[in-house]
């Protein structure tokens, strides 16, 4: 493969790669840095690419290794990350001022419940063990096959299946306990609360009906509802959506809160 071919193909993969890395790291800066570093590594090692896997698989393998190197020394986030970050946001006037400014002035400043569902998943999934987090995103959001994930992460297909099974079950359990969109006894209403703040004229119930996962909450199994949640993530590009700037601002807030929280509790 020539450098030109690599560059051309890399450009087509870049968007998905950056979104994957954002969902792994919860940091725009880290995601962008790793994308750049991935390209440089791929460029440097282009002679070793033998086409035994697709270029996309090979590129994701380089990026996953870089993400692992970055994240392996960092603590995982707690399951109740959204509660901790909500408390921090309520005590931080600047956060809401900035958010309202983005809401009013940015073309990517809309608030949509669907976008918040994806954002929420990004935060909560950082409570999974690192390997499980990687496997879950690669399989359920970026649609890689078990065999391809085995190549990307250099682990056996059996272990890919193990991590996938455990991670799915853990996330299903967390959301079933927490998310009021799928369980009437869920304890978290943040997406509809924020909708009330950013879209005061909207009726949350009318918005929820537009979301298949919320609409089907009483009729589908927990597994199916999780698949619908994954469908929301698959369809959203966190950098390009109409809510991107608002959600990235929120994500950066949560990342900073988590870093402080984990340091204080270490």
């Amino acid at each position, binding site marked *: 493969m020539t450098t030109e071919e690599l560059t051309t193909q890399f450009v087509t993969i870049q968007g998905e790669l950056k979104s994957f890395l954002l969902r792994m790291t919860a940091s725009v800066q880290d995601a962008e840095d790793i994308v750049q570093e991935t390209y440089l590594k791929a460029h440097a090692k282009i002679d070793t690419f033998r086409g035994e896997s697709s270029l996309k698989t090979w590129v994701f393998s380089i990026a996953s290794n870089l993400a692992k190197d970055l994240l392996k020394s960092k603590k995982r986030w707690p399951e109740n990350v959204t509660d901790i970050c909500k408390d921090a946001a309520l005590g931080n006037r600047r956060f809401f001022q900035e958010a309202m400014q983005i809401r009013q002035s940015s073309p990517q400043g809309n608030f949509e419940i669907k976008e918040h569902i994806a954002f929420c998943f990004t935060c909560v999934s950082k409570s999974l063990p690192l390997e499980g987090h990687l496997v879950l995103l690669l399989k359920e959001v970026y649609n890689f096959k078990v065999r391809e994930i085995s190549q990307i992460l250099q682990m056996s297909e059996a*272990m890919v299946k*193990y991590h996938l099974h*455990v991670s799915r079950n853990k996330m299903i359990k967390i959301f079933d306990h927490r998310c009021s969109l799928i369980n009437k006894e869920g304890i978290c209403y943040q997406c509809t609360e924020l909708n009330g703040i950013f879209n005061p004229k909207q009726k949350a119930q009318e918005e929820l009906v537009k979301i298949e996962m919320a609409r089907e909450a009483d009729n589908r199994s927990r597994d199916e509802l999780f698949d619908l949640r994954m469908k929301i993530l698959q369809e959203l590009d966190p950098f390009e959506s109409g809510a991107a700037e608002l959600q990235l601002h929120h994500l950066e807030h949560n990342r900073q809160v988590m870093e402080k929280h984990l340091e204080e509790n270490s």
Partner: protein
Amino acid sequence: MNRQANPNTRDAKAATTKKTFSRETSVSTTIFADPAIVWALLTHASDIPRWNSTVTSVKGEIKEGETIELKSTLDAKRTFKLKVKEFVPEKRLVWGDAMGNRVYTLVKGDGGGVHFSMTEKIGGPLFPLFAGAIPSFDESFERYAADLKKEAETIQRSKK
């Protein structure tokens, strides 16, 4: 010596051998899954209570030389502090305390299955004094093996 088999009808039957100064309970079954999956289920401590109906919590890491704190349905009020004495991936795991050891073994079979066995031997000079207060392990062992088999085979069959 008094050897008893549990009368419950389950896939894997536990058997207990009683002697004056010791008691040994064993269970074994064939699991149709990759040994890596069975091993991961046995050794990822924090995940064990999810699939194993006989364990309510495990704290610590299951690695050689580490000590774990395990709570079981056999005695809900008690926390067992157990040292991991052997850890041979996908083959053998041993943990225990002053009372005895629990030994897990995996042997890959010819037909694609894994032969899983779990044995616990407890005893010592004072064993006759408290033997009567220790509940039978048979049913718990059978459930352990059945839960492990079910979970591992579910993962093995999961989507590609």
